[in-house]
């Protein structure tokens, strides 16, 4: 069953190493180390998706939303405190609005339980809906007043001034919480619904972060975000980035180790049994929906952590910078190409695809410029002018083509999941 020397894996990783060294030789150490750090952050995201898609067959089309939540948490916990906000009476007002929010949620929840007191169900539903609409309008107008004041007087509420890793942990928790909400609704139904719902929640999270200027400064962006390691000013670019890389590498190693143990534990066997044959797993007495929810939330937590690490590294929180293309489909390609359900394959896929992705931009530009010059020389074409942005659009096409080709010709990935057989 196990070969003495895993030749396939070894040769693939040696090839990857050669590619990384080639990038180092071509682009310089600072640039290449930055690329590696980003690839490492994407590897955390890809591990999150490989749990969901590879282990359990759930398709999450909204990785971007969970990444953005992680990024928001990293920003909120690590940015310095804003005295213009805390030294005024506005925290109290905001607290009152939030208390009103909590109180109205409890009131509405109470109203949905009125049938226990002997009130007919139809009347209960009517009361609950009317109460919900009225309280919603009251709370939303309170919040509008407070947030408007914060925006005009203090800019935004600032951060909490805590170390960056606190933000990473809370980013994971926040993403996991939203994942729980989505999973509760959709996981009992067919997997298509999950894809639609995650796609929607990702856009909503982005819209919220973009338009809540009081919380995130919206399009004005927040920067710089502190790093968990000494910054470039103390150590220089290469060393600082290498230090950051080692932090993310430790995070990946911990996640990898835990996942490896979980995968080979009875829990992992149960998860795979549910993925491969739901009916027989249910017949063996496994609580399918509960396990699915576990897996989905776990994947979302990893995405939150990865998103927080990525945002901290970029040192800027820009809600508009979260693109479905980069943060959802690129991660999807990493997982499918690397090998869904195989953690080593996922990490391999993450680094490989990220190198291709980063290098494709100069390459595409180079190709298009050549084509434009040739076209001008041979046929007298007019240069469209905005080649840069068009080269970027070419990448959208390439990612889509890559997804289709991999699904068609290599659905198990370059390093497929090893299914152990016991004779």
């Amino acid at each position, binding site marked *: 069953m196990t070969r003495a020397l895993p030749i396939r894996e070894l040769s693939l990783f040696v090839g990857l190493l050669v590619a990384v060294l080639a990038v180092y030789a071509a682009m310089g150490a600072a640039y290449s180390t930055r690329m590696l750090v980003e690839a490492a952050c994407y590897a955390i995201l890809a591990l999150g998706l490989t749990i969901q898609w590879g282990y359990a067959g759930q398709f999450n089309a909204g990785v971007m939303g969970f990444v953005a939540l992680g990024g928001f948490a990293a920003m909120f916990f690590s940015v310095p405190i804003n005295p213009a906000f805390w030294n005024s009476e506005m925290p109290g007002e905001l607290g009152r609005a939030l208390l009103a929010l909590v109180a109205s949620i409890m009131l509405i929840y109470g109203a949905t339980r009125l049938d226990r007191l002997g009130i007919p169900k139809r009347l209960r539903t009517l009361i609950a809906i009317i109460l919900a609409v009225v309280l*919603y309008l009251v709370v939303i107008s309170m919040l509008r007043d407070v947030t408007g004041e914060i925006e005009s007087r203090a800019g935004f509420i600032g951060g909490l001034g805590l170390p960056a890793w606190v933000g990473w942990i809370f980013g994971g928790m926040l993403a996991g919480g939203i994942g729980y909400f989505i999973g509760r609704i959709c996981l009992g139904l067919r997997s298509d619904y999950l894809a639609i719902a995650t796609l*929607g929640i990702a856009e909503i999270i982005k819209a919220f972060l973009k338009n809540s200027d009081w919380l995130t400064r919206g399009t004005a962006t927040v920067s710089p975000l502190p790093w968990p390691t000494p910054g470039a000013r103390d150590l220089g670019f290469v060393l600082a980035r290498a230090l950051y890389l080692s932090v993310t590498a430790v995070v990946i190693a911990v996640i990898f180790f835990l996942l490896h143990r979980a995968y080979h534990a009875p829990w992992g066997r149960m998860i795979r049994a549910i993925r491969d044959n739901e009916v027989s797993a249910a017949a063996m007495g496994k609580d399918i929906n509960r396990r699915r929810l576990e897996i989905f939330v776990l994947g979302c937590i990893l995405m939150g952590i990865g998103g927080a690490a990525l945002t901290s590294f970029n040192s800027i929180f820009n809600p508009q910078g979260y693109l479905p293309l980069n943060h959802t*489909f690129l991660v999807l390609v990493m997982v499918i190409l690397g090998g869904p359900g195989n953690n080593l394959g996922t990490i391999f896929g993450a680094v490989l695809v990220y190198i291709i992705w980063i290098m494709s931009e100069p390459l595409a530009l180079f190709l298009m410029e050549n084509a434009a010059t040739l076209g001008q020389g041979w046929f007298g074409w007019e240069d469209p002018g905005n080649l840069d942005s068009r080269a970027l659009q070419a990448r959208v096409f390439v990612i889509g083509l890559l997804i289709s080709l991999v699904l068609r010709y290599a659905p198990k990935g370059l390093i497929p999941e090893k299914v152990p057989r016991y004779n």
Partner: protein
Amino acid sequence: MNELVFFINNVVVSGTVSGSIYAMGAIGVTLVFSIMRFAHFAHADMMTLGAFVVLLLTTLFPEVGGVVGLPSALLLLPIAMAVTAVAAVGIDRTFYKPLRAHDVKPIVMVIASLGVTLMLQGLIRLFAGTGSESLYIAERKDIFRIELPFELASRPIVVTEPQIILFVFAIVAVVSLHLFLSRSRLGKAMRAMSDNPDLARASGINTNTIVAVTWVIAGSLAAAAGTLLSLDVAFKPDLSFFLLLPIFAAAIVGGVGHPYGAIAGGFVVGFAETLAVFNWSVLLRPIRDSFPEWLELPSNLALVGTEYKIVVPFFILVAILVWRPTGIFKGKVI
């Protein structure tokens, strides 16, 4: 009365506009689902593709419409519908059919359709750039102001030419789809295949033909909806982005696999969106004086701001999934 006119202009007209667009999109999604059993994510991009073909044709022949007094884009729409239908069948042959032949899980088809989405988006943006362009190239958009015969209503009801075209087209499309599904042999075969594919195959229905016909209907309706929407506002390459979620919400609200439900769902979602962003304090203004002292009317009583419009279809989706996953017309649970 002016408040009522404001309500009609802002809710009734625009709700009907977006409702018709969503309905035409949702019919396609629901048909594709009922024949091929997967959620087709590239549908909104087929709409953009159709609008893009119209844009190309209109740029080539901007004067065509002047001959019969209609916008050129409308006159060129049938060609674009045909092109999109052929493209839809081609996409199916190249990308979906091999996967179907391998008998993959439906979710893999969903991922493949996301791949197609990205390819279409990339191609359209590669050629059209990223800015927005009006489909009225050589003509002017006609705007009709209907004066009301009441004394108190000094403001007119405003309807634009593309909106009227859209209403007429939506009604014609729905009626002809109904006739096709209920009267023609092919339509009946389609319904049979939607109910039970194995039985349909066993009784001699050519499933390949049915699949192709489904794509032709879905593709041409998508092209029409995309074009009519772009006529009303403007052509944008990221049009699909704002359409995808409402279309799916509409299809699920109406009950998946249920073409008439999709129409109803489209209007439910369209009206819910416009009602949610409508500022209700405008309607309450005439009766403001009769309110008690302590009740102060805020100036903005909209349920959600326009920037959060996308929340509305999502909320409807979640509500319907929680309370009635089969949709209002008892469709299938996918």
